[in-house]
């Protein structure tokens, strides 16, 4: 059982996950952010690896990645930082990055480092299912890693069932056909999509992300899924109030 499955054993509704970018706002803020999120009872944390060309991300996360790269972050530093809190951190971490980072770092070396840091779940948005089936499934199995797949309003039912079978953590339900970032209220069309997915009675847990930004959107998302991920809104908060403002941000969500 991986760390995320263990969380679902204890609790399977209203799960709050927060995405943040490593090395942002300052190079050495990674562990401060994780510790503060843990102190505020966030259920699991999505740790973003800054990337120069993040295709699925909106302007807020793009800017945070650029700033983190300017701060001097790189994969070696990220792994060093995560190793430092491995023993004390009890909140599961999910690592999110783009495939080119893993490819260049060395796929085996990357997976080994991830596991050494106590992480067992990855989100790689540009890793397509066919590549997973042909190559990465075997690699991830070797290291006991789980890949989280995304589904969107346009993903076919057949494909969703396939993804359901590959999932050992959760299915990332992308709230709308969009890149990351707040869109305001959740529309009736989105609710119809959430209801459709819920009615499929998948074996996997569902976490909704993209466009979840406040208490209202979080609560709505949680009524159709096991929980939700907040990213851009949290990054904006970090930008304006820094690590010290994390408590207020989380208490404003639930």
């Amino acid at each position: 059982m991986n760390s995320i499955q263990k969380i679902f054993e204890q609790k399977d509704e209203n799960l709050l996950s927060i995405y943040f970018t490593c090395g942002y706002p300052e190079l050495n803020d990674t562990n401060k952010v994780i510790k503060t999120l843990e102190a505020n009872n966030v259920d699991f944390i999505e740790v973003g690896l800054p990337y120069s060309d993040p295709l699925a991300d909106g302007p807020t996360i793009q800017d945070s990645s650029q700033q983190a790269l300017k701060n001097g972050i790189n994969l070696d530093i990220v792994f060093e930082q995560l190793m430092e809190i491995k023993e004390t951190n009890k909140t599961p971490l999910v690592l999110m990055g783009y495939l080119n980072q893993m490819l260049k770092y060395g796929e085996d070396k990357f997976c080994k480092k991830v596991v050494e840091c106590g992480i067992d779940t990855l989100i790689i948005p540009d890793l397509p299912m066919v590549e997973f089936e042909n190559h990465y499934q075997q690699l991830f199995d070797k290291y006991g890693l789980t890949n989280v797949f995304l589904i969107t309003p346009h993903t076919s039912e057949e494909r969703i069932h396939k993804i359901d079978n590959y999932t050992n953590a959760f299915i990332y339900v992308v709230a709308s056909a969009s890149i990351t970032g707040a869109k305001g209220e959740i529309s009736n069309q989105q609710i119809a999509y959430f209801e459709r997915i819920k009615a499929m009675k998948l074996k996997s847990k569902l976490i909704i992300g993209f466009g979840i930004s406040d208490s209202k959107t979080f609560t709505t998302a949680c009524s159709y899924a096991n929980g939700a991920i907040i990213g851009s809104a949290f990054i904006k908060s970090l930008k304006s109030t820094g690590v010290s403002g994390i408590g207020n941000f989380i208490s404003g969500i639930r």
Partner: protein
Amino acid sequence: MKSKFHPDKNGYFGQFGGAFIPELLHPNVKELEDNYIQIIESKEFQDEYKSLLKDFVGRPTPLYLAKTLSEKYGAHIYLKREDLCHTGAHKVNNTVGQILIAKKLGKTKIIAETGAGQHGVATATVCALMGLDCTVFMGEKDIVRQAPNVARMKMLGAKIVPATSGSKTLKDATNEAIRYWIQNPETFYLIGSVVGPHPHPDMVARLQAIISEEMKWQLKEKTGKEDPDTIIACVGGGSNAAGAFYHYFDDEDVELIAVEAAGLGVNSGESAATSQLGEVGIIHGSKTILMQDDYGQIVEPYSISAGLDYPGVGPLHAYLYESGRAKFMNATDKEALAAGFELTKLEGIIPALETAHALAVLPKIDFKKDQVVVINLSGRGDKDLETFIQHLED
């Protein structure tokens, strides 16, 4: 005939290619993959495509024996005059083809990315022709250095969206176009080069293959043989080179030379010579050779030519490079400018700065007597006049 330089069923050229796209794009790419070959090979498409190429684009483009240039370099140098295409470059071959595919798929909104502006102009042109809505993404830096093409696109009715991230050039314009496409899946992404996720590289290569198809019969008419000894073309993403090489992939006797932009010098830190500086990586949805740092962050390229200012090459070119089928050379800004001035003086043709890179390798090649060389003159230099004028004194 199936060539090893055509992609396999998953869109791979050797280890390069594929479709590394977020799930959000899967339906769009799948729709195209499921339909493009059937559409392109249909008689209806071919009739309409060939008719537009003839009467709208102005094909066949001439294959011109450049006598003075030939005398200077001691070879028979032919120029495939893609600069004489409507809109001023080879790009329009592809946009005419893709707009027909978009229409067959029932799409009404078109997006495109552009570097030098030639693809943007060619896209805006075919959108005007077909009455379709057109949005072009262009790096903020390129908007400034390619002002005439920006004006043309606007006159043709296109909306220009500046890409303000990263290096503010072609790479970033492509990122922004893909992000827009994710959010607007009903649009058709009319990609400008042999880059992007499968099937885009193959589709664009097929639509540019008209260049080598014509070269074959034109050479036969002029020399009695269909095959030249050497074909030279510049490579950014690589669409004009793919078109010029296409019918010669399997004729190993024909030497294929791809010329990249070395910028201020391959090792100057200001270059776009991807094959020399790049490693295997993923950019814009395909696995290829790519300029990147030790941690997979994409390195900003540099070239005086906006169309070659790209940190990768298309996956077909990565395979041509790795397999040794094509020889990769490069030319600096300075060498390209000199070659542009030289062609202007010797032959009365002002080439695009991109094309000038292909011409710039002529002094670096030791030609054999009677060697037949075709240079793909991919575009004309009107858009680059300001840059050329700035360097007139040099």
